[in-house]
């Protein structure tokens, strides 16, 4: 088992600035979502990905505009990383009519098909076969598109994971499966309920795939592995399974204070915050404090503007209830 070394120095300056900008935006968005929840403006549940930004950012920057992203209920960052509107996303969290899904999906289902964000799936494992299907479609249409599917460590123990991996390998599909191993399956340590130490990487050999374990808190590493795995898929080399080690700074969902995690572990991982790590690296690479500060200020402005847009929206429209079951826009089941 190898943890790939950081690819420091190999990533271009402009790409690095883009990676940093995206991570900061994703961080600020999630923090704003949490603040709006404290204001009781975000209802229902939400599953924040604070601390896991490097994975979505690395892949988001490496993907082609027409590639497909499939993600989970912890998917705000993956959806936004494709260019989806922050304002529409926040409005959706707030149940507003100007929400991304007009209030019909909510936090766990953010989708923006025109940006390649093909959906956030809230039943663990379901989207792996669906991503394989999108890759199958790309393969037979010879479109050169790649499907990237993000999921958590807990997903590796559900049947759909194994069905999808096997089918993707047998059909040599252009799909990349990215396991975000944040060490906890909801409230339970993943190692306590899994037969192997590395829940995805140790299973790769069962499907004839290379075991790939990477530092999911290092944006350079994530960008590098994204380019490798997407490139392989696009070139007809078939699927990859990547396990990216990371840590969520908060609990599983807004109902979870995450008190089951040892303090030393939390401290250690907070020190490895992907944004802190990357900021330091940018400074070491000679990028000035002013330029970094400017990126941070712009991210904050973007989230502020998105918040205003969302707050300004009217409540979701009740006449949406019986719309868009069918392709004719209706919900009609009888004549």
């Amino acid at each position: 088992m190898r943890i790939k070394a950081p690819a420091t120095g190999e990533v271009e300056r402009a790409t690095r600035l883009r990676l940093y900008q995206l991570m900061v935006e994703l961080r600020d968005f999630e923090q704003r979502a949490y603040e709006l929840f404290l204001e009781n403006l975000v209802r229902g549940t939400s599953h924040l990905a604070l601390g896991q930004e490097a994975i979505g950012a690395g892949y988001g920057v490496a993907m082609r505009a027409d590639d497909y992203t499939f993600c989970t209920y912890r998917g705000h960052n993956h959806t936004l990383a494709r260019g989806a509107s922050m304002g529409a996303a926040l409005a959706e969290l707030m149940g507003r009519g100007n929400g991304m899904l007009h209030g019909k999906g909510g936090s766990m289902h953010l989708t923006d098909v025109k940006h390649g964000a093909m959906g956030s799936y809230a039943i663990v494992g379901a989207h792996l076969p669906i991503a394989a299907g999108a890759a199958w479609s790309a393969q037979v249409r010879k479109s050169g598109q790649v499907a990237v599917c993000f999921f958590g460590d807990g997903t590796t123990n559900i049947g759909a994971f194994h069905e999808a991996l096997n089918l993707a390998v047998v059909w040599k599909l252009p799909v990349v499966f990215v396991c975000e191993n944040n060490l906890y399956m909801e409230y339970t340590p993943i190692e306590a309920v899994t037969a192997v130490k590395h829940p995805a990487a140790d299973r790769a050999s069962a499907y004839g795939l290379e075991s790939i374990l990477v530092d999911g808190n290092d944006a350079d590493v994530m960008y590098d592995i994204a380019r490798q795995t997407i490139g392989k898929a696009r070139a007809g080399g078939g699927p990859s399974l990547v396990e990216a080690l990371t840590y969520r700074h908060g609990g599983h969902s807004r109902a979870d204070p995450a008190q089951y995690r040892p303090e030393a572990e939390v401290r250690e991982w907070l020190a490895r915050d992907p944004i802190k790590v990357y900021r330091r690296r940018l400074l070491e690479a000679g990028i000035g404090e002013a330029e970094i500060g400017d990126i941070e200020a712009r991210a904050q402005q973007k989230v502020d503007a998105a918040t205003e847009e969302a707050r300004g929206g009217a409540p979701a429209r009740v006449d949406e209830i019986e719309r868009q079951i069918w392709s004719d826009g209706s919900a009609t089941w009888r004549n």
Partner: protein
Amino acid sequence: MAELSYREAIAAGIAQEMARDPMVYFIGEDIGAAGGVFKATVGLFERFGPDRVRDTPISEQAIIGAAMGAAMTGLRPIAEIMFSDFLATCWDMIANQIAKTRYMTDGQVALPLVIRTANGGGTRFGAQHSQSLENWAMAVPGLKVVAPSNPADAKGLLAAAVRDPDPVLFFEQKSLYGVKGNVPDGEHVDTLGSAKVLRDGKDCTIVALAAMVPKAMQAAEQLASDGIQATVVDVRSLVPLDTRTILGEVVKTGRLFTVEENPRLCGWGAEIASLAADECFDDLDGPIVRITTPHVPLPAADVLEDAAMPSVERIVATVRKSMR
């Protein structure tokens, strides 16, 4: 007109649509070189090749998930689930993902796909290979549900399902696979959501689906010799539901009987009975009566299975008793 068996009509329907539209792909277990375990897909692999007619592993979640992912990105897949009982192994894909994604995304995604499956009893296969599950699908908003009773409908409704822009669960009644009937020559496309009146009678209306349709027709013949003239309606499509035709026939006769292969509780006939009670109450001359399998899994032995499922004799006896 050519005489085809129900299974040949299914293969002809798939072939017609695959020849018409290069975006139609077909996947499932043993459907390719083997021609399907029910031989309902014979010749497709040879004609369309292994790219468009693809064998899958025994992975129902992968089959249905792949169909969904393909449908949302430009293909019009047909996926086969060998026995409808196996729908339970991929029900998340169907009920949570396929049925809801268009709605949850407020129409960002279209899912033009067909899930074909061999459904129903009468083959002595026992409780896990004999269920009639149309009502499972009917209970989930976002799924269209079709169950043809004869070869012509099998081909025409399958073609309509493939052309439909929304997901369709297509239930093929396995006891009907060998039944022969005339199928129109050339391109044949039917309409989803249209019931058919197969027999016109003034005394009562018998509403049936799939394998219960020929039984209802035989029962109507026998009842006629007793002086009871029964209308028989083939529902054909549960979603959309042709309530105009069905309730129109109920109003004409004043009596409604449903014949359902499914176990008693929450069968499709219960919804039709409810609609009739709501909307035709003043036109009813007697109680609505549902004829179903008892609320049990289907047993395997021939005598038990035959006694459990609605039979011609049970339909005749029930109608006669109720009409007395």
